[in-house]
Structure formats: structure tokens, C-alpha cells
């Protein structure tokens, strides 16, 4: 018979307000195996923990049951207290009499028997608890950062500065991401490239950072401290060691394709670097448009390349490497506003998205930095900006606010006034949201000093007429319909998750919200962690956010990764699954369902009659097992037990509740 001690917490009035503590303590004394029962106002306090530790020693307890809040809150606290008294921490059991009882009931007459039943169940389970040891696991002292935008660069730099190796995997030919596409940044109007490119160069030159551009993650296996990752380095058809970045190849290349970096507003060559400050300055050949790959002739780049760096035979390369931590920083896309027929996007060259307009300002952009209409090359005199295109739209778009549009629209309107002083801007908005340091002042400057007409209302239709665009909207403050003959329309299209975010989430093993933004582990207290240990998120892949927020989040994710990498050993999961191999039928349903690839088939020998029988059964690798229990419920012969939650323990709990009402 075990010697069990029961300790009940008042939690102030949280529990004591609804559960009769004295009655509960008295009832607990009669549970089988219980030799000691006590109560305290705040069991999680140091005094409370002392009560447990002392009682274990004085009463020679070998099992402890605490009736407290959810084990998610304080299981560790109490396990530590038990361990301090020399008890194996897994011999302690928590009965959740707060969230599962006092908080959901009002009537003490009803809540008290329920609390007693929960405690009786916990005591019955505790009697069957076994001492468990958590395995100690190695930590690979290297981090992987997925995504080479400002979030990825910042996270990588911080991790590298702490002395750990970092690999950045970037799917495009250059790092830089969305920030490289921007002209200036709000609210200070810093030139985006001027503040970004030094960081790009720093990342490229840092001895601890290894850039894997034009690469994608193919597979992630393993677990915290030991992620085994396969990275596909796509063939560039250019030898990065030989290439000097001289640019002769892309000058001479005769074929073109729409430039992804310029949002398709201009063309790039088939051998190209995405932009002038690209890092690394090594071009790639786009197979789909290259004449040689399409028709087998041309090869001009190969003939012209001075260091003979062109290699048409290059193949994708798979790099397999182990990482201790992963930071996901894959950024965002812009919603394609074509779904809104009323705005006519895609049907007229002067109807642009915010990101496209950003490129029009840029000195290396499609118009060479001249703010002109793409239709006729003349400067626009009247520009209409429309907010919330697809944002805050539960009918056809995204229900959330994209957060950055109010500010970048104000910025673009100010920049427009600087470049085209006689231009007039109109902004149709629903609400102007400018939370952020210096943001409100900036937006007001646009309205008050740069002659930007803010109209509270929306636009119902845009159509071309003669040489302009007719914009029909409403000013809901005067309730007047407004018609503007505009030269250009800029649509603040919603910030959306990357198209391949769901696939990447599955690959890496993190979950996302209904809009495919990756989920943080806790919206307030764990903003960069995910539900998968060792994987962190940063930047707009988590939710729409601006540059300062992205950078802070990236540094936060880096600190979390550094904290992990700095550990000599990690404590693994003690409650792992275990196969009773004599009962196992070898169906291996468990192998198929295990999300951590912790189960493998093994061949065992059994004595059968006079001979020996060889048969296949399942085996669990406790280092990989995370104790989710999927295998245990899948097992048809009931031969898998989750340690700490064995079938016998669960049945003992059920019996304790059902048989003694």
C-alpha cells in the first residue's frame, strides 16, 4: 500500500469560495492509501511548498496528490517541491480542482463532492505512478533561419553574435526580402535600402553566418536540439566560387521575363540578379525563359563570362544538416486585388497596388525613380489611394486589419508630393490606425502639411474614361458622393500569408491560424515561441507587422534560440510511450500515426512450442517520443502504454470516480 499525502490549496478564494476545503480534507483522509491530508491558502507559495516538503519527510510519504489549479500552471512547481524532499517528481499527481471545478461551478454543495471525486481519482492514479527519469538530450549548437528578409537577417545576426553558427535559407536568389523592395520607411523616411544593405552585407560577411540563397527546406525531422533538415539548394547554373558578379552575362542575355522583384512592372533578363544590391552578387539562370534551356541554343552568357562561371549542367544539391533550433521568418505576400472587379485592377496600367507604387518611387525601379504613369509616362496630377482592399473584409477578403497600410499610404502620399509638387492626393479610408511611436504625428503631417485629402469612406467603382480613371466614392462625413477624375489609383491591398505558408508549416511542424499566419505559443506571454519546442517565429509570417516590430520580434526569437543553444543538455520527455512487445501484433498502425517518427519495426524472437518464432513488433525511441499518446489510442491490441498515463492508471481514475459515488 502506498503512503499518500493529499494537499489542498484554497487559491485565495478561487477554490475555497466554491469548494468546502475542510470537508474535502476530511474526505481525503479516507481515500485508500492516504496517510496524511492538509490544506493551505496558497500552496504554490514558498510556505506552501515547504508544507509539502516537510510532510513528505515527516510522514515518510511515497505519493503526493495536490488539489490545485491546472497542472499547466504549477505542476512543475510542485514536482520540484517533491523532488526537494527526495521524492521522484513523477510520483506527484495534480487534481485540477480550480479550472475543472471551482471556476465552473457556483454552488458549494455541488462543487465540493466533485472536488472530492477529482481528488479520489488522482489518489487512485498516484498509487500506480512509477518513478520516471527524463532523458538528457544533446543540443546541436547551430541554428537554422528560414527566410532571409529583415526578420531572418536580424535573427541570424543576433544568434551569430552570441557565438553560434547560423544558416539562412532564402528561396530567392538574394537575401533582403520585402524591405529591399521599399523606397523609404515610415515614419522617419529613412531610405530602406540604405539601412538594410549594411545588414545584408554584415550577414554575408559574418564568420558565423552561412547564406544558402536560392534554396528551400525540403524536410525537417527530429526534435528540439536535434532537428535533421534537408535543404535543397536549387541549381543556379552559375558557379558562385568563380563568379565575380561583373554583370556581363545579364547585360548580354537576349531573353527576358517579368521581374519578380519589380512586381512584374518591368522585365529582367533570363540570367539575372534580382536587384542591384543583391547579396550574394551571383546571378541565377531562370530555366523557364532561358533560350538555351528552352530551345537548346544561345549560350551567350557562357561565351561572354570572363571567369567561365556558367555551368548548364549544375544540379539541385541536397544539403543535410543538424540544427538545435529553427527560426521561421518567411514574411508575407500582398493580396491580389483582381478579385475586386469594381476596382479594375489588372485592367489598366495606372491602377497599382501599394507595393507596386513603392517600386515606381525607387531609383532602380521600372521608371528609374521618376513618378510617372505607366500608361503614358507623364507624372500623375491626381492620385487616389484606397485603404482596406481586402483587409477588414469578411465577405471576400481577410477579416483582419493589415496594420501597415494606413502608414505606408501616408508615406507614399508625402513622397508623391515631394516628387510631383503639383500632385493632389486623395485617401479613401475607413479608419486611420496609427498606433506606434511617431506614427500619428506622421499621418497628420500628410494631411496638414502635404495637402493630402483624407475622405472617410470607400470607393464603389473605378473605370477608365478618356485619359483618366473615374473614381466613384463617398465621403461618409458629409454623406456626399464623390467623383474624382484621377490619373492614378493605388490600392492598399491586404497583407496576407505567403502562398506556401501552409506547406512550410506542415513541413516544419508548426500550426497556423485560419489565414495561414503561423501561431505563437501564447498570444501574450510566448509571442515568438511555437507549440513545437525549438522552433521560433519572427516577422510578418506570424501576423502583419511593420519593420520595427519585425526587428524586435526577430531579436526576441534569436534570444530564445540562443538560450536553447547555450544549454549543455536538454531535459527530454519522461512520459514517453512504451510497447509491451509480447502483446504487440506488429500491425504498425502506431508507426504510421506517430508525428515524431519515434516508432520503428523491430524483429524479435519468441519461444513457440519447441522452436523459436521470429516476428515483427513496434519499438519506441524514447529520445524522439514526445508523449503525445497517439500511438496508445491507435494500438488495436492495447499493447502501448504512455508512461505516467498508462491504461491501468486511467482506468483506476475512472473507477475511482464511477464506483464510489
Amino acid at each position: 500500500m502506498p503512503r499518500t499525502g493529499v494537499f489542498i490549496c484554497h487559491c485565495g478564494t478561487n477554490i475555497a469560495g466554491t469548494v468546502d476545503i475542510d470537508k474535502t480534507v476530511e474526505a481525503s483522509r479516507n481515500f485508500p492509501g492516504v496517510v496524511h491530508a492538509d490544506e493551505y491558502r496558497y500552496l504554490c507559495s514558498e510556505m506552501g511548498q515547504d508544507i509539502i516538503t516537510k510532510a513528505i519527510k515527516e510522514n515518510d510519504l511515497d505519493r503526493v496528490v495536490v488539489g490545485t489549479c491546472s497542472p499547466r500552471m504549477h505542476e512543475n512547481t510542485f514536482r520540484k517541491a517533491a523532488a526537494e524532499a527526495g521524492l521522484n517528481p513523477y510520483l506527484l499527481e495534480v487534481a485540477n480542482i480550480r479550472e475543472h471545478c471551482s471556476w465552473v461551478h457556483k454552488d458549494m454543495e455541488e462543487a465540493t463532492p466533485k472536488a472530492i471525486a477529482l481528488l479520489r481519482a488522482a489518489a487512485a492514479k498516484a498509487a500506480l505512478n512509477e518513478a520516471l527519469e527524463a532523458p538528457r538530450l544533446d543540443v546541436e549548437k547551430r541554428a537554422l533561419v528560414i527566410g532571409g528578409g529583415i526578420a531572418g537577417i536580424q535573427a541570424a545576426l543576433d544568434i551569430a553574435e552570441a557565438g553560434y553558427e547560423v544558416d539562412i535559407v532564402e528561396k530567392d536568389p538574394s537575401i533582403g526580402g520585402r524591405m529591399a523592395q521599399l523606397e523609404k520607411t515610415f515614419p522617419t523616411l529613412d531610405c530602406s535600402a540604405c539601412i538594410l544593405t549594411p545588414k545584408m552585407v554584415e550577414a554575408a560577411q559574418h564568420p558565423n553566418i552561412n547564406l544558402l540563397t536560392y534554396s528551400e527546406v525540403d524536410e525537417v525531422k527530429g526534435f528540439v536540439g536535434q532537428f535533421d533538415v534537408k535543404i535543397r539548394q536549387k541549381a543556379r547554373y552559375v558557379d558562385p566560387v568563380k563568379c565575380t558578379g561583373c554583370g556581363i552575362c545579364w547585360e548580354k542575355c537576349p531573353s527576358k521575363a517579368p521581374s519578380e522583384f519589380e512586381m512584374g512592372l518591368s522585365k529582367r533578363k533570363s540570367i539575372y540578379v534580382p536587384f542591384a544590391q543583391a547579396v550574394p552578387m551571383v546571378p541565377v539562370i531562370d530555366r523557364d525563359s532561358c533560350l538555351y534551356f528552352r530551345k537548346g541554343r544561345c549560350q551567350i552568357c557562357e561565351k561572354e563570362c570572363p571567369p567561365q562561371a556558367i555551368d548548364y549542367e549544375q544540379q539541385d544539391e541536397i544539403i543535410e544538416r543538424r540544427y538545435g533550433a529553427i527560426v521561421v521568418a518567411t514574411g508575407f505576400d500582398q493580396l491580389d486585388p483582381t478579385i475586386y472587379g469594381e476596382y479594375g485592377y489588372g485592367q489598366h496600367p495606372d491602377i497599382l497596388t501599394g507595393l507596386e507604387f513603392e517600386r515606381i518611387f525607387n531609383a532602380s525601379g521600372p521608371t528609374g525613380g521618376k513618378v510617372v504613369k505607366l500608361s503614358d509616362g507623364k507624372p500623375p496630377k491626381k492620385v487616389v489611394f484606397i485603404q482596406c482592399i481586402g483587409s477588414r473584409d469578411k465577405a471576400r477578403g481577410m477579416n483582419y486589419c493589415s496594420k501597415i497600410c494606413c502608414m505606408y499610404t501616408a508615406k507614399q502620399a508625402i513622397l508623391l508630393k515631394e516628387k510631383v509638387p503639383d500632385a493632389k492626393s486623395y485617401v479613401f479610408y475607413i479608419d486611420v490606425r496609427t498606433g506606434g511611436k511617431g506614427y500619428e504625428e506622421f499621418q497628420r503631417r500628410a494631411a496638414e502639411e502635404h495637402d493630402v485629402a483624407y475622405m472617410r469612406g470607400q470607393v464603389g467603382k473605378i473605370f477608365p474614361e478618356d485619359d483618366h480613371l473615374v473614381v466613384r466614392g463617398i465621403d461618409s462625413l458629409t454623406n456626399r458622393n464623390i467623383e474624382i477624375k484621377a490619373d492614378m489609383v493605388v490600392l492598399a491591398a491586404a497583407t496576407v500569408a505567403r502562398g506556401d505558408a501552409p506547406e512550410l508549416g506542415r513541413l516544419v511542424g508548426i500550426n497556423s491560424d485560419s489565414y495561414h499566419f503561423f501561431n505563437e505559443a501564447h498570444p501574450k506571454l510566448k509571442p515568438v515561441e511555437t507549440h513545437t519546442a525549438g522552433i521560433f517565429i519572427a516577422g510578418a509570417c506570424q501576423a502583419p507587422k511593420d519593420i520595427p516590430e519585425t526587428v524586435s520580434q526577430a531579436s526576441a526569437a534569436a534570444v530564445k534560440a540562443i538560450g536553447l543553444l547555450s544549454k549543455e543538455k536538454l531535459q527530454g520527455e519522461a512520459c514517453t510511450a512504451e510497447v509491451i512487445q509480447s502483446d504487440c501484433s506488429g500491425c504498425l498502425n502506431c508507426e504510421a500515426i506517430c508525428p515524431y517518427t519515434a516508432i520503428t519495426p523491430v524483429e524479435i524472437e519468441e519461444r513457440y512450442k519447441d522452436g523459436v518464432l521470429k516476428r515483427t513488433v513496434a519499438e519506441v525511441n524514447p529520445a524522439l517520443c514526445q508523449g503525445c499518446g497517439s500511438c496508445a489510442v491507435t494500438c488495436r491490441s492495447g499493447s502501448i502504454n504512455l508512461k505516467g498515463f498508462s491504461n491501468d492508471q486511467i482506468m483506476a481514475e475512472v473507477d475511482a470516480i464511477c464506483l464510489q459515488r
Partner: protein
Amino acid sequence: MTTETGKSRLIEDMKMHSGQDPNGCYQCGKCSAACPVSAALDLKPHQVLRYLQMGLENELAESKTPWVCASCFTCAARCPRDIDLARVMEGLRLSILRNRGGNKFGPAELTPEQLEKLPQQALVSGFRKYNK
């Protein structure tokens, strides 16, 4: 006219007839921007929703807007909050008619000839609708 709970009967009826909740509207005005008869409305579509939110039933009952509305459904197609404004207008029309009281189609007002010619079903349904 308000009900015992202080709610406007006209507006509650409108909600019941249309199945639409005016509280979903955040007043972006896209309905009014898109409405082809906007110029002829004394209350723009987004104002109608605002008046519904504010419970201004007398102003709504006197407005021409529900009667000018052409039920073209452009507002409903454009609304980012998924409110079918055309249904709101129809709901308003029904509620206004039914709440007007009096014997709009009372049997006494009809001539014997009319009573003879009109189908029984139409009469009964007319009385039921407009005789409250």
C-alpha cells in the same frame, strides 16, 4: 413605437424579415459609393444602417430611401461585412408597411365587386399582413 424591452419594433421586425444584423456595419460607405441611385436618396445606404444602429425608427419610417431603392443588389455585392443591404431595404419596406397600423386593406374598404373578384387567399393574406 418601442417594445417593452425598449427595442424599436420597426427595427426588430426589419431584422426578423431580412435576417440581417445592422450592428455588423462599420460605416465604410462602400454601399453608398456603389449605389446607382445614391443621388436620389435622402438617406444614403450606409446612413440607413447607422440609423438602424442608433434606433432612429421615426426617421427611417419617414425616409424615401427604402422606396427609391431599386433592389439592384450592388450594395450587397460590395459590402465587406457581408451585410445584404438589399434585404435590409426590403425588410424595412415590409416592416414600415406592416407597422403603419390602420386597416390598409380592411374588408370594409373594398367594394363588393372587388371582394368577389379577388381570390380568397389574397384577401386573407392581405388582411394578415396589413391589418395589424
